[in-house]
């Protein structure tokens, strides 16, 4: 890591360690508050939301590696605010878009929470949305339904992928606009999803991108989302392992700490081995993305496959090695397990990543 990366990591870790209490998180979620305005404001003030925004647009112009540092910590502290979602969606706002800076300032300041709305439910292809952007006599109309929008309940604005007259289009749509029906639901990973219906008039400056640049932005969004989700999985898996190590050292059965049993020691050794192998691959994927090397697509998918496999195994083992306590809602370990499970299928599932890895390997 560079000196700046170490500083970013230390500051972020200090904030989350001191301010992101697990029990406070539980109470907040019980009230249906998925994004704590104070946390989000703090994220903005620490510059996190400006991370991937280029310097000429008043951002920090930092790369995937820096995003991954934050994502890993989000995994470790079980952050429910949609940080990786918003960071990835910045890709749609910084592409050669005539209206980007209008919105970017709001994203960076934390005033807007912009969530990409892509999925339309089972069996629908992401790259051919049935949501349409059509030109009417009076202007533009956005029509269609987006389903299972992850973290959609936290959004102030949706960035909607639609089919327009020039191919794909990204349309920024305020959640409270007339003709937007947003039905939210809690999700198992401590967030709120949304099903969103659109039948709404769209101003010209809400159309961020269309045609080829929109397609490119979708790909950029996906690349960043894949690697950030791997990094968050890594952070959560490592935290689940650490919790397991600490717990088995304390928990006494048969007159001795669980950690003294070799059968359990070797399982924890396996967890560590796999977590560290995953870390190597996730960081390599970041470096490949930031270095813009030809193998960056393969590395991103390899890391996603590895992180998903390891995250699942390690978080399952963490529950097993804890025993009954880890099956309760008030204990932290099961929440790592749930978040890892949610990340596994977010934007690009493990099996999609594996197939794409094979395709890129040619």
């Amino acid at each position, binding site marked *: 890591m560079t000196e700046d990366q170490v500083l970013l990591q230390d500051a972020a870790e200090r904030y989350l360690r001191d301010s992101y209490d697990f029990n406070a998180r539980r109470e907040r979620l019980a009230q249906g508050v998925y994004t704590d305005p104070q946390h989000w404001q703090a994220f903005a003030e620490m510059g996190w939301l400006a991370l991937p925004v280029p310097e000429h647009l008043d951002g920090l112009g930092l790369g995937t590696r820096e995003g991954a540092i934050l994502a890993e910590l989000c995994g470790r502290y079980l952050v429910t605010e949609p940080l990786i979602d918003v960071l990835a969606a910045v890709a749609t706002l910084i592409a050669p878009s005539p209206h980007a800076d209008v919105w970017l300032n709001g994203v960076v300041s934390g005033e807007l929470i912009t969530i990409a709305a892509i999925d339309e439910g089972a069996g629908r292809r992401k790259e051919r949305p049935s949501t349409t952007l059509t030109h009417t006599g009076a202007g533009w109309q956005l029509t269609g339904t987006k389903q299972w929008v992850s973290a959609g309940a936290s959004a102030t604005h949706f960035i909607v992928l639609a089919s327009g007259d020039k191919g794909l289009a990204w349309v920024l749509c305020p959640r409270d606009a007339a003709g937007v029906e947003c039905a939210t639901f809690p999700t198992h990973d401590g967030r709120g999803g949304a099903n969103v219906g659109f039948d709404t008039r769209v101003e010209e400056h809400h159309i961020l991108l269309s045609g080829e640049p929109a397609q490119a932005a979708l790909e950029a969004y996906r690349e960043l989302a894949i690697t950030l989700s791997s990094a968050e999985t890594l952070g959560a898996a490592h935290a689940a392992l650490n919790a397991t*190590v600490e717990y*088995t*050292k304390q928990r006494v059965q048969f007159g001795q700490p669980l*950690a*003294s049993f*070799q059968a359990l*020691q*070797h399982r*924890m*050794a*396996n967890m*560590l*081995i796999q977590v*560290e*192998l*995953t870390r*190597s*691959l996730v*960081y*390599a994927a970041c*470096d*490949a993305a930031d*270095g813009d*090397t030809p*193998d960056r697509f393969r*590395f991103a998918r*390899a890391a996603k*496959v*590895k992180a998903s*496999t390891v995250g699942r195994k390690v978080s399952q083992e963490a529950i097993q090695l804890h025993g009954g306590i880890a099956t309760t809602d008030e204990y932290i370990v099961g929440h790592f397990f749930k978040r890892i499970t949610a990340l596994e299928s977010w934007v690009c599932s493990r099996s999609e990543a*594996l197939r794409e*890895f*094979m395709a890129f*390997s040619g």
Partner: protein
Amino acid sequence: MNASNPIPGDYTAFRATVREFLASALTPELARAGERTTSVFSDFEAGRQWQSALHARGWGAPEWPLEHGGTGWDIQQRYIFLEECRLANAPNPVMMGIQMLGPMLMHFGTEAQKAAYLPGIISGDDIWCQGYSEPGSGSDLASLKTTADRDGDEYVVNGTKIWTSMAHYSNWIFCLVRTDKNVKPQAGISFLLIDMATPGITVTPFSSLDGEVEQCQVFFEDVRVPVSNLLGEENQGWTVAKYLLEFERGGQHFTIDLKKQLRKLQRLVASEANAAAEDPTFAFRIAETEIDVMALEQTELRIKGSVAAGEHPGALSSLVKVSGTELGQQCAELLIEAAGQGAMPWQSEVLAPDYQGPTAAPEECVTTMAEYINSRATTIYGGTAEIQRGIIAKHVLGL
């Protein structure tokens, strides 16, 4: 930072120099011996010739310090050298002297011992084997029972060592022996250098599962060893042996060979009418293995980066052995599945570097089965996978 090389600098010229040397020094016979290697050891004679060629070029022991005949290469140069040798199918000489004894001699040896032994090790004129394990002392090495009793200026050694690789080719053996039975096991062990020509030594080679002979049992009956052949202090043998573990850490590169195995696998699957190729799940298994190899390679690079930065890689290096050997087994399994019955013919003579006759197995499969069989030993020797996991649990996780 480049994803594939954590160490900045241009090594193109260095790589070219290594390739140039390989192109001239590595004869087709030697490369064939390298290609037909099925375990840690290549054909003995080919390995010896190759060591002597390396030594003549000044590259006999790249890892050693300059003053003892090393190369002075940095960590990246050493890696490139190893990689080029592996890719060109250079054979593996018997390396116990260079990799194991050498570092211990340099650290613990007297000036007289260094002068007496290091030159023969690096030239390959002396072949050393390692006498650690005993029939009753495997993973619990400290329980070893071979004794060395002091008698004037000599030790009298009695007992037996097993899994002594290549002892039948060796003229020296470095041994752990018990010099004090009345203290805790680790505190009563000494490190002795023993000439294999000393009266009272018997070597009994035995075949491994693949039919090849690499392993031996060595018997010591009233073997008289000069006290001057003690390395380190008396009863300090455990410390001497443990130093090597420290030295070895981080120096292991499994992925060069794993990538070779994967390429072989892909060639095999791509060949005409391969049954495994028709199974779509087989392609997924190869891809998943490839991803695991990428993860290990990046871990090796992380270690290399931290060693180059003068840091101690610590936790990382201990997991490389476990992961590298288990992935090697996984690749070997995929290879025998892809080879099918083609891997079954058992024809020892094809392994000889000068063999010119027909092969019962398809050319690309002649070593597949032997490699699979021998891969089982990789998680046993040099500290079993269970011992390694115990080390990780204790020293990394603090359990």
